Every structure is written in C-alpha cells, then in structure tokens.
C-alpha cells in the first residue's frame, strides 16, 4: 500500500463507513461516451474536460450553471470569482463551505487542467492560465 493511500484511508477512517479499495491501478474503466470510473482512490482523468465532466459536474452540472435546493451550488458560468486563477485553485484544494476539497484526489497538473478548463468554458474567456507549479505553491502554502 502506498503512503498516499494510507493517508487517504486515515483521513476518512473517522467516518467509519469506509470500504477499503483493493485495486490501485492508475487506469480507468469506461467505454467511449460513458463516464469514467477511476480504478484508484484518486482521479484517473487527466484533461480539464474529463475532470469537469466526471467530477465537477456532479454539483456544478453539465452546463456549469449550478443548482438550487435548500442551499445552492454556484454557477461557474460567468463567475467573477474565477477572475484570479489562484482563487479557484485554492477552492479546489481546500474546499469551501459546501464544496469539498477534491484537490487531494488530483495531481498538481490535474488541478491546473480543470481550473484552466473552467476559466475558458461556460462563457468564461480568461486568457491567462494557471500552471502545475502555481498549484504546487498554493498547496504548500496551506496544509
């Protein structure tokens, strides 16, 4: 078992509902057109689009418009909080209120890819990009 996996299990163990996953392979299952199911605890998707479609859209929805129930998932379409790239990177890494910290399930490259994807889709047209190095720096800044 890798140290990373052990850490994840420790992290979720207090919830007392875990079923340890036996497979550790880095690839994923899914036919063309189907959603991806990673075979490891972390996300296997690499491109910004694949990460959005298989992770973010669970809450922010396929059209990036979010959803409203007793509380709301904010729309990413035209979201002013995306203007500075570091801001969504921090949210992906640390979580924020209803948003869980999904960044620990992604590499620095994956976080950068999905943030860049969101900042250039759903009518967002930011030209600057964030890099894996930016993500790494932000990750080490906050535990």
């Amino acid at each position: 078992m890798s140290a990373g996996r052990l850490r994840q299990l420790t992290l979720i163990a207090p919830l007392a509902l875990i079923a340890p996953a036996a497979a550790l392979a880095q690839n994923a299952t899914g036919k063309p057109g189907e959603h991806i199911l990673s075979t490891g605890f972390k996300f296997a998707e690499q491109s910004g689009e694949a990460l959005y479609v298989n992770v973010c859209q669970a809450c922010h929805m396929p059209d990036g418009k979010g959803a409203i129930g007793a509380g709301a998932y904010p729309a990413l379409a035209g979201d002013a909080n995306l203007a500075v790239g570091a801001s969504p990177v921090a949210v992906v890494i640390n979580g924020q209120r209803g948003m869980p910290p999904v960044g620990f399930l992604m590499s620095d490259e994956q976080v950068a890819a999905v943030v860049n994807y969101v900042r250039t889709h759903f009518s967002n047209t930011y030209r600057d990009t964030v890099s894996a190095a930016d993500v790494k720096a932000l990750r080490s800044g906050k535990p």
Partner: protein
Amino acid sequence: MQSDKATAVSRRDLLALIGTAAGSAAMYQAMQSLGFAANSAYPGPIALSGDVKGASVLILGAGLAGMTAALELRKAGYKVQVLEYNRRAGGRNWTLRGGDTFTELGGFTQTCAFEEGHYFNPGPWRIPYHHGAVLDYCKRLNVALEPFVELNYNAYLHAPDAFGGRPQRIRTIKTDFEGHVAELLAKATAQGRLDEAVSTEDKEILLNALKAWGALDKDYAYKANLISARVRGYAKGPGGGLDAAPAAGEPVALRDILKSELWEYLRSFSQIEFQTTLFQPAGGMDMIGKAFARETGDLIRYDAKVTKIAQDDSGVTVTYVDARAPAAEQTAKADWCVSTIPLSILSQIPINVGARMRAAIDAVPYASAVKIGLQFKRRFWEEDEAIYGGISYTGLPIREIAYPSSGLNRGGRGVLLGGYIFEGSNAYEFASMAPAERVARAVALGSQIHPQYPTEFENGVAVAWQRVPFTLGCAGYWTEKTRAEHYDDLCQIDGRIVLAGEHASYLPAWQEGAILSSLDAITRLHHRVVRT
C-alpha cells in the same frame, strides 16, 4: 519485565479489588477505562426538569436531531415549532419503495419501481448494538427492529486483478490469512525468535493459542486437512450414509492473499461499529423517522426553506419561503433556536452568530457518497450461492454489494444494495452521471461478481448525496485539524442559537451522532433557560 504474578491478575479480580477498596464510583471509572461500560455515550432518557417560564423554541430541520429536540422540549413544557425543507419528516433517515419519486439537483427524477414489500435505504441502513440512543428511541417509539447481517462468512471478497477476477469467500480468505500468520508466528516462537518478548511459560500458552486460533495441525502447520476445513470450509461437506466423508480443500497461498490486498477488507468487520449485533428497523430505516413524526408531526411546517436566521436580545427570527413557491417570505419567531440544518446549507444562510461559530460553520465540507438499489427477479445470491444477508466487498468502483437481511430464503424477488461508494474518485464520478447510467454501470460491474446480474436484473434507483437537495452531501467531513480548531465553537450556544446534528458529534454520518448531539444541545439550552 513484569512479574508473572502481576500479569496473572484477571480483569475481574482487579475490578473486585478496586470495588472493595474505593466504592462503586471508582469501580465504574475503572470499568470505563477497561472499556466495559464506555462504548455508548448515551446516559439514558433525559429529564429536563424545572420551570421553562413559557419559553419557546424554534427548531430548524425535522431529521432525527430536530425531532428528538421537538419531542423532548415539548415534553419539558416549551412552545415548540419546527421548520422542515422537505415535504416529509426524517431527513437522511429515508427509505425508497415502489412508487416513490425523487428529484435530484439538476432535475433528474427517478421513480422507484420495486415490488411491494421491498425497499432501499439511501441513507443510514444499520444500527450498531452500542448506539444506545437510537435503540432507546426505537424502543420508546415502538419501532420494530430485526438483525442486520453485517458479516457473512459466505459472502465474497473480490479484487478484479487477483485470482483471475474470481470472488473469494470471506471465510476462506479470513481463515487462510489467519492460519498462515499463526503458522509463521508459531515458527518464530518455537525457534526462540520471540524470546525477548515472551517468557518461557507464556511461550507454551502462545503456541497452543496459535494452534487453536490458526487451525494449525499438531506440528503447528497450516495445511489442507480437516482441522483447517472445519474453519475455512470443505471441498466436500460432511454428509450422511455412504460416501459421506468430508474432504478438505487446499488453502489459498499466503503470497496470493498478500498480493490481492483482500486482507484489507477483514479490518472493516473488526471495527466496533460493524461488530455484531447490528439492527435495522423492519420494513425500512424510515420507520424511525415516521415514528418520531407521529409524536412531533403536528409541530412541523413542511416545505419551509430557511433563508435567514437573525437573533437579538429578545429572541430569534427565522425567515423562510415555501420551497415549492418561493416568492413570499414568511417569518417564525421564538425565544431560542435549535438549528439542525446541515452545515453545507447553513453556511450559505445569513445568520448573525459570533465569529467563532461562523468560522466553524464554514469549516466542515460534506462527504460524497452514492448508493444504488437494484431489484432482481429472484434471490440468486441465496438460491445459487447460499449468501443470506451480509456484504461482499470489491475493488471495483461499486465497492460493495449488500444482500437483504430480511425475507431470507423465501424465494421471489429481492433488492440488493448494488453499490455503496463513499468518498474517493468514484463517488464524484458516479454522482456526475445521470441516475440511469449509475444503475447501468452498477449492473455491469456487479456482474463480474454475480454473473446472474444481466439476466435477473429488473430495475434500480441511485442516490448521489452530492445531488440531494436537502443536504448537498452525505455527512460532515471532519479532520483532526478542523475538529481541534472548530468543533467546540460549533457546539457552544451562541446567544440564543445552538446547533445540533451528526455534524455536531464525534459520530459523523451516524444517526446516533444526530440524537446524542441533539440531547446534549437541548440539555445545555434548558439549563440556561431555567437558570435565567
């Protein structure tokens, strides 16, 4: 090294000694430190005595925490009202049956098509024997319980890339793993490798214990024979009459078990939450919520979406709208407020509490979880595979398959929990799919364990908690760090407001945590009321 005499004092002797010398309080203290009396934090029914001076309490949320508060506070003499977002009571205490519909965020609506008498619990589904508060309310509210089968030795452990993808019986993996380990330990003991840690006298006892525990033969070897077969199961079971002698099967090699990582799953059964006996309400988990609602339903205003919580010196005012027609704002007022709204939602509602509680409300993200219920034409897991209740674990993204604990051996249809994906990549990935795809993928994956799936499958429902409108997630996700920083601030009474729910407990995601948190919150609130 301790003397043999000191270590030979049994727990019971020790307790008797302490009891005589120091009285029963010390005895109870000692019992707790030895772990006998401490597993349940439930002290028994609460008695909120004293003059409440006509005080009123507004409770937000009619889940188990909210309805516990409503039931107990009304009994104590408070004027109580409850606001609930859903059109039903229970919150995450929830069961889907044939004919039920559910619309998730994003607009997908599912209609459950299960045959009458079958059900699926999207939320909590089992009650450990030491969850004393849940059990006591079940008893007081006449909720019939039945055993929930957690550990079934005949269910499977499955790793897609081990043993050619063939599922292994829990019984054989557990026995073979323990047998091989016992043999290794016995070898090391006999060779004197453990002499520093084990006294000569203990060595003999340890060898005997390893032989018994590991089903070893007289030479302390773990082998294919009738000693191991009595634990791991037979290749041919004992019968009657001629040709009836049992035959032993070959144990799985230690290196194959180690490589498969199936040993990891054995740990889940050993956790105290999953040790027998566990219970479930007969007919579905929502029998508990319904029983609470029979007691408190007249206090509940349904379809009420809270939009603002404001307190001042004179009381608490909560603004809400009709969840189905959100145009007109209404208000409810009381002297005090108990909010059980999940933090994923409360963190989005304007509320004037102090900076510390505010920070605590914002600090707890919600875990992601998906559950999938599948109906099959026949109970093939019982008829073909002799699996009656219990859980199979797999490295596939569905993570587990749980077999129904009721209706055993009766034939006809059956409903399985076809996937329970808690946290990790797959929880988000399943939640990102449309419900029908979640079900289809669970059927496709599950057929690697049960090849009967494709021909026997009829219909299914899939609940992704991230998309559940009334929680936006499964349960509060605490870490050691956030607990140290924020937990006490979350639980403190802030002015006239106190929070309750599983998120304000050390039993996250458990109903016991919701009730214990509620009892603690209203007890503290009550003390404040009768004191002032």
